[in-house]
C-alpha cells in the first residue's frame, strides 16, 4: 500500500520542527507537554467552547491562564457576586480581565477558578496518551495546513490515525441525510468507492445514512484512505451502531475532531463539525438532504470558502432529495457522474469507475411492468398490486425473481428498487 500508511502511530511530516505539538507515542519536550496539558485541562472545563478558549488564549499562554485560575478567587469584602453580605468571593484582577476577554460572567469565572484547583493537567495529558489520541493546537507545526489556512480554523484538533492523508491526497466530502433512501445510500456507496479507487481521500461525518454508506464504499475500494470528522470526543462513539466503521476509519485513515475526549455529542457541535468537513474538502458532494438538513449547512460553508459543491439530483417526490434539488435550483452543480468530481479535482478520469454500471438484463414484459410500478419511495405489497394491476400471486412470484436478480431489495414490509437498472 503506497497511498497511505496503515500505522495509527505515524507522525506528521514536520516532525523534526515540532515544538508545540504532542504526537504519540513519542512525546516532545516536557515543557510543551505541560503546555498542552494545561490547554486540555482548560478545554475540559464546563461551558468552555472553542471560541471562548480562543479568546482566552489571545495574548496569554495556557499555563499562565491556568495559574491565574487557580488563584483567581480571593476572599474579601467588596462588590456583590450573588453572595450574602459579609465575606465574599471575589475575582482577582487578572481573572476579571480574562472574564471580560472571554465574554463570560464573573460567576462562571468563579466556577472555573474553583474547578481548576481540582483538576490535574498532567492527568489530562496522560489520558490522551493512553487512548492514542494526538493533539495539536493552531500554532503547532503539525497542525494540518488545510485547516490552518481556513477562515475559521479550530483552535485545537484531536485525531487518531494518520494526518499525512490530508497532505498526500486530494479530498472530497460526501455528506447527506441520515434517513436516506436506498437510492441515496447506493449512490453514496458507489461514489465513495469510485473516488477512493481514483486516489481521492473521502471526507465524511460518520453519521448514519449517507455518511456511513460513503465510508463503507471507501473501505470496500481499499485504496485511498477515509477521513472521518466527528462532533463528539474521539472516545464517545456516536452513533453507537457505527463502532466498527469508526474504528476502521481510524485505523485505515484519519479520524478527526475538535471536541476533547469524554464529551458526548451535543447539538451545536454538528454544524461546527460540518464546517470542518467543508474546510478539509477540495470538493463537496451532497448526495441527499432534507429540506432543512445539516448537509445544506456544509454546502453553505463550502460555498463561503469558494469550494465547488455538487448536489446529486433526486426525484422531486422524495423528501430525502428535497434539499439537494433545492440546491440545484439555486445554481449548485449537478453530479451526473463520478467524473464530475474528478474533473473538478483535476484528476485524469480515464481509469475512474462510473457511478453506476448498468448491466442490461432481459426482463419479461410482466416484470418490466412490475418494476415500473415502483415509485422512488419504498413500496408495500399492496401498492405494487394496485399500481401494476396484476394479481397478488403473480406479483409475489415476480417479486421473488426480481429480488434474486438484484432488481429489487426487500426490507421487511417494503420493497425498493435495487442497483440493477
Amino acid at each position, binding site marked *: 500500500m503506497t497511498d497511505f500508511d496503515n500505522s495509527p502511530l505515524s507522525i506528521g511530516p514536520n516532525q523534526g520542527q515540532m515544538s508545540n505539538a504532542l504526537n504519540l507515542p513519542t512525546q516532545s519536550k516536557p515543557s510543551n507537554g505541560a503546555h498542552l496539558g494545561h490547554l486540555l485541562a482548560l478545554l475540559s472545563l464546563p461551558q468552555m467552547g472553542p471560541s471562548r478558549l480562543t479568546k482566552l488564549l489571545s495574548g496569554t499562554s495556557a499555563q499562565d491562564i491556568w495559574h491565574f485560575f487557580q488563584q483567581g478567587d480571593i476572599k474579601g469584602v467588596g462588590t456583590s457576586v450573588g453572595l450574602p453580605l459579609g465575606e465574599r468571593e471575589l475575582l482577582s484582577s487578572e481573572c476579571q480581565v480574562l472574564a471580560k476577554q472571554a465574554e463570560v460572567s464573573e460567576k462562571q469565572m468563579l466556577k472555573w477558578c474553583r474547578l481548576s484547583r481540582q483538576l490535574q493537567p498532567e492527568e489530562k495529558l496522560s489520558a490522551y496518551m493512553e487512548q492514542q489520541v494526538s493533539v495539536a493546537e493552531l500554532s503547532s507545526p503539525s497542525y494540518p495546513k488545510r485547516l490552518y489556512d481556513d477562515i475559521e480554523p479550530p483552535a485545537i484538533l484531536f485525531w487518531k490515525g494518520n494526518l499525512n492523508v490530508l497532505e498526500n491526497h486530494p479530498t472530497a466530502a460526501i455528506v447527506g*441525510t*441520515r*434517513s*436516506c*433512501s*436506498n437510492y*441515496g*445510500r*447506493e449512490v453514496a*456507496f458507489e461514489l465513495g468507492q469510485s473516488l477512493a479507487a481514483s486516489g481521492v481521500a473521502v471526507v465524511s461525518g460518520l453519521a*448514519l*445514512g449517507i455518511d*456511513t*454508506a460513503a465510508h*463503507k*464504499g471507501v*473501505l*470496500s475500494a481499499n485504496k485511498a484512505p477515509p477521513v472521518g470528522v466527528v462532533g463528539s470526543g474521539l472516545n464517545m462513539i456516536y*452513533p453507537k*451502531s457505527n463502532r466498527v466503521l469508526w474504528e476502521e476509519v481510524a485505523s485505515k485513515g484519519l479520524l478527526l475532531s475538535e471536541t476533547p475526549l469524554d464529551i458526548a455529542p451535543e447539538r451545536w457541535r454538528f454544524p461546527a463539525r460540518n464546517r470542518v468537513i467543508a474546510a478539509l474538502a477540495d470538493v463537496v458532494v451532497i448526495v441527499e438532504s*432534507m429540506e432543512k438538513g445539516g448537509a445544506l449547512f456544509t454546502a453553505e460553508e463550502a460555498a463561503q470558502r469558494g469550494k465547488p459543491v455538487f448536489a446529486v439530483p433526486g426525484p422531486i417526490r*422524495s*423528501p*430525502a432529495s*428535497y434539499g439537494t434539488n433545492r440546491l440545484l435550483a439555486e445554481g449548485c452543480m449537478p453530479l451526473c457522474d463520478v467524473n464530475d468530481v474528478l474533473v473538478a479535482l483535476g484528476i485524469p478520469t480515464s481509469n475512474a469507475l462510473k457511478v453506476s454500471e448498468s448491466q442490461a438484463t432481459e426482463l419479461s414484459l410482466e416484470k418490466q411492468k412490475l418494476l415500473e410500478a415502483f415509485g422512488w*419511495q*419504498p413500496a*408495500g*405489497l*399492496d*401498492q405494487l*398490486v*394496485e399500481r401494476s394491476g396484476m394479481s*397478488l*400471486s*403473480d*406479483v*409475489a*412470484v415476480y*417479486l*421473488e425473481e426480481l429480488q434474486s436478480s438484484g432488481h429489487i*431489495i*426487500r*426490507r*421487511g*414490509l*417494503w420493497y425498493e428498487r435495487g442497483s440493477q437498472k
Partner: protein
Amino acid sequence: MLTAIKSATLRGVLGYPVTVEIHISPGIGGFSVVGLPGAACREAQDRVRAALQSCGLSWPRGRITVNLAPSGERKEGAGLDLAIAVGLLVMEKKIRRKAVQDWGFIAELGLDGSLRRVPGTLNLVEAAKCSTVVVAPDAYPEASLVKHCDIRIAHNLAELVAFINGSREFPQPPALPPPTPPPIADLADIKGQRTVRHALEITAAGGHHMLMVGAPGAGKTMLAHRMVGLLPLLDHDTALEATRVHSAAGLPLPKSGIISYPPLRAPHHTMSATSLVGGGSGAVRPGEISAAHGGVLFLDELGEFSSVVLDTLRQPVEEGVVRVSRASGTFVFPARILLLAAMNPCPCGELGSPGSCRCTMADRARYTRRVSGPLLDRFDLRVLVPRPSMQELIDASPGESTEVVRERVLKAREIAGQRGVLCNAELSDFQLEEEAVLTEGAKVKLAEAIQKQRLSARGYRRVRCVALTIQDLTGRRGAIEAKCISQALALRAEPFVDFNADLLAS
C-alpha cells in the same frame, strides 16, 4: 329441624353443585352462614329477610344456621339467595318439603322479593344437575340451553310459593327470538387495499393469526372490525363454550341466549395481564382472550401494550386454552381465538418513506421491543396497510362485499372440514405432512427461503399451512404449487427492519 336445598356456585367458568343446609335450633334468634361464604354470600341474611317480609312471609324464629356444602370450597356471589329463602320457607312450612325435592334454585333476591339473574346462570344450571331449576326471568334464555332440565321462572318469592304449592300455574316462558347477527360493517366500505383484504380472507379461511402494520389512518382498525363478518357461525359446542364464558364473566348475552356469531373483542392497550388471560382476587374471572373464544381478539396499537401483557398471549394462542393457576387451584378457560393485531411501523408511523419518519433509532427500538420475537413468530401473516391513494379514495367503485368473500371462506373451511379440522391452522404437524403435499417447484421455493435464513422451523410449517389455505381458496386441490408458497412468503414479512442498516457493504 333440618332442610337441604340444591343450588350451585361458580368456580372460574364452571359451576359446581352446592347444597344449602338450614338448621334451626330453639333459642335466641340469630343467623349465621358457614361453609366459606364470600362477602356477597354472607350478606344474604339481610336480603333474604327483607325479601320474605316484602312478600308477606314470616322469618323463622330461633337460631338459624345455614351451611353451604361442600364446606371447604369458597362460595362467591349472591346466587344462593333464593335457595336460602326457599329453605327457610320449607322450615316455616310455607312450602312442602316433597315439592322441592330434586329442584334447584339459582337467583339473587331483591329487597322487594324479586328474583334477579346472576352471572353464569347457564353454567350453574348445568352444574346443579336437577330435574327442575327455578331461575329469574331474565336468565331464562341462557338457562334454556341446558338439555334434560325443566327451567321454571318466577318474578318474585310470593309468586314462587304459589306456583310450588300449586295454587297457581308456573308462567309459560317467553318464546326466544332466533339469533340475529350483530351489527358488522361491510367489507365493501373499504376502497382499494386489495392485498390486505386478501390477507383477511386467508386469515378467516385458515384461522391464521395476522399482524397489520401501517401508517396512522390507513384503515387497520376498519379492516379488523370487518373481520368477524367473514367467519362462519359457531358450531354448537363452541357456541355453548363461548356463552358460558360470557355468562360467567358477566358480559351481556344476545336475546336468543346463545352466542352463535363469532365474538369480536378489542381491549384497550392499557389492559393488565390479568384482564387479558383471566384471574383476579377472590372469584377468578375469565379474561378477554376467553371472551373472544371462537371469534377474534383484536389488539389495536400492539406496540403500546406492555410487553408483559403481550407475552402472556403466547401459550393460549398455541394451545387454545388458558390455564390460570392460583393458590386456590388451576382454572382452565377456553381460548381458541383468531389473533388480529395492528400497529404502526414506528412511533410516528411514517417509516417506509425516507425523510418522513421523525423517530430516532432508539425510539423505534423501544417501540418494536414490546413485541417479542416469539410472539411475532405466531403471526403467520404480517402485512403492510398503506394509506389508500387519492385515486383509490375518489374511485367510488366498492370492493367485494362481505357476503361474496364469506362464501369463499366457507368453501375453504369446508375443505378443511374434510381434513377433520375446523380450519387449516388446527392441522397437526402429522396431518400437515399428509395434506399439504408440495410440488417440486414449491419444494425448491421453500428450500430457498430457508437457506436465506428467512424461516425458522415453525415458520416453515406455518408458510406451508398458509400456502395450503391459499390453494384451498382458489378451489384447486392436489399438491401445493410454487406460486402459493411465493404468496405465503410475500405475506409473511419481517415487520421490524432497520431502515438505516446498510445492506450494501458487510
